Each structure stands twice: as structure tokens, then as C-alpha cells.
């Protein structure tokens, strides 16, 4: 279970995240939409423990993220950046992450994660020689290698071809059905709502809409989102 309570984070005088609260149970997937600069990435970085909230708190399975390693061990992050070492091979990158998370068979875990993202045939290629899409697959494998109970995905479909997108959707579905909590940031409503159990629209650091997926009128939701995304701050 993930609980975020009253999260606030300001940069200078501007509040990038302004009082965000939500609770996600095991198996939930929150699809988070919002225009550029809405605060989505800042929110994800706070949930991952990479950024300390100015106010509020995050708990993952009851453990406050600010308490450190025990909470971070349960979180996986797919970011805008690949978070890969360009000189190391795909396998070495994922294996390094597996070792950081203290997995008993890091090499085996790395290969399984690469297989899951269908990039195991390029396991021994240095990350710098891979295309953007393949790097994204390796990056996702890296985030999933320790089977996190909270998986944070910031635009994970960016750069993926059809096969990569299908592999990612299958992997995310499997994780969610296995009881992991997913938070999916995307601009693509179709992709986001396909997996979601909850949906939220963020603007100016706040959730302006947040409801259960099953209650949504998708067409009205899409229209409202387009309207919100078109308004410049």
C-alpha cells in the first residue's frame, strides 16, 4: 500500500507540487495525466525518495520513504533519463542494479528482467550502442529487476516500438496482478487508462481530478484533459 499525505515541494517561490494526497492499495494502478510543468515528475521523485518533500509524507507498505533504505528497496523508477551507464553492457547495467538491491542471484535476475522486456538478445551490447527504444527497455528491466512493490513510471512508452510497448504492457499487467502498485505518468490517455484502476489529472501541482477508473466516462475525460492541456500556465 502507498500513502501520500499533503505532499508539497516548492522550487524558489513556485510550488511544483501543492498538497497532493492519495492512497493506493496493492494491485492498484494510478494513471497520472497532466500538461508539461504540472508537477508530475516532481511528485514521482518524491515518491521514489530522490527528492525530500517540503511538507507531507510518503509511506510504502507503512514505511516512511524518508526513513531511507527499507522503503527505497520497495520502489522501482522508470525515469525520463535512462539511468544507464553507457559503457557497461545491458546485462551489466541491470546486474549492477540487482546487486545494489541485494538480490541472491543478480546475474540470473538481470537476464530474467531483460527477457521480460524482450531485449535479452542484446544483453552483451554496451548501452551506448543500443537505440533509444532498446535503452528504454533496458531501463525498464533495471527498474523491475528487484520486483518492487511500488513501480513509478514516467512516460515509460516513450521511444518504444510496438513490440516494446506490448512487452511493457504485459510486464506492468503481470506486476499489478501480482500485487504491485503502479503509478504511470503519461500523456497518452489510451495507454494510461488501459492499465489504470484510478486516474488523476494534475495541473499546477494539484490533482484537479482523481477518481476510480471504472467511474470514468472516457470520452468526457478525454475532452476535459485536452482542454486542460491546451491551457498555458
Amino acid at each position: 500500500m502507498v500513502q501520500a499525505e499533503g505532499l508539497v515541494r516548492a522550487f524558489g517561490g513556485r510550488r511544483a507540487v501543492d498538497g497532493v494526497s492519495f492512497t493506493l492499495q496493492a494491485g492498484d494502478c494510478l494513471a497520472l495525466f497532466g500538461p508539461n510543468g504540472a508537477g508530475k515528475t516532481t511528485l514521482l521523485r518524491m515518491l521514489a525518495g530522490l527528492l525530500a518533500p517540503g511538507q507531507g509524507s510518503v509511506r510504502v507498505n507503512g514505511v516512511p520513504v524518508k526513513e531511507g533504505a527499507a522503503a527505497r528497496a520497495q520502489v522501482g523508477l522508470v525515469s525520463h533519463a535512462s539511468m544507464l551507464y553507457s559503457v557497461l553492457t545491458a546485462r551489466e547495467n541491470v546486474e549492477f542494479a540487482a546487486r545494489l538491491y541485494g538480490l541472491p542471484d543478480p546475474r540470473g535476475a538481470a537476464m530474467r528482467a531483460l527477457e521480460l522486456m524482450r531485449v535479452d538478445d542484446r544483453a552483451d551490447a554496451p548501452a551506448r550502442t543500443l537505440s533509444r527504444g532498446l535503452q528504454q527497455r533496458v531501463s525498464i528491466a533495471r527498474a523491475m529487476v528487484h520486483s518492487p512493490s511500488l513501480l513509478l513510471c514516467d512516460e515509460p512508452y516513450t521511444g518504444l516500438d510496438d513490440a516494446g510497448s506490448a512487452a511493457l504492457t504485459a510486464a506492468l499487467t503481470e506486476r499489478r496482478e501480482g500485487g504491485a502498485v503502479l503509478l504511470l505518468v503519461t500523456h497518452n490517455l489510451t495507454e494510461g487508462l488501459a492499465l489504470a484502476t484510478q486516474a488523476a489529472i494534475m495541473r499546477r501541482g494539484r490533482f484537479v481530478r482523481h477518481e476510480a477508473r471504472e467511474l470514468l466516462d472516457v470520452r468526457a475525460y478525454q475532452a476535459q484533459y485536452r482542454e486542460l492541456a491546451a491551457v498555458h500556465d
Partner: protein
Amino acid sequence: MLAAAWLVARKDLAIEFRTRTAFLSALVFALLGVTIFYFAWDATAVAAADLAPGVLWVIFTFAGLLGLQRSFGSELADRAVDGLLGAPISRE
């Protein structure tokens, strides 16, 4: 904590063995340093034995800093450092 430090050091060494950028930068800096000190040194004013320890420490320190900067550069590229910060290891 030591296990995590060793893990990160081993990764840095693996990167360095493949690129040799930090080693080559440090080597070039060391050669330049020795050359500059050689021409700037007045043998009648300071004995070689008195000058040598200072020269060595200057070269060790700045060559080390150069290597550190190169190593940290690989962390900042593609935000690999976020992977380290998000991992369940000590940040201290």
C-alpha cells in the same frame, strides 16, 4: 556500507578499464605538472629533496581530483546517479 562502496568502486573500475579517460587525464596532468615544476624550479634556491614531496602531493591531489570528476561525470550522464540514490544503500 563497505559492501555497497566496493560494488560502486568495482563498477567505476570496470568503466575506467574500458574508457581509460580518467587514467589518461591524470597521466597527462602528472606529466605537465612535472614539466612545469622542472622549468619553474630554481635549483640554487631550493634543494631537490625539499621540493620533491610538495611536487608529488600537488600532482597526486589534483590528478586524483581530475579522476574523481571524470568518475562523477559517468554518474551524471543519463542520470545514472538517480539509480544509486534510489537504491537501498547508505547515502552517507
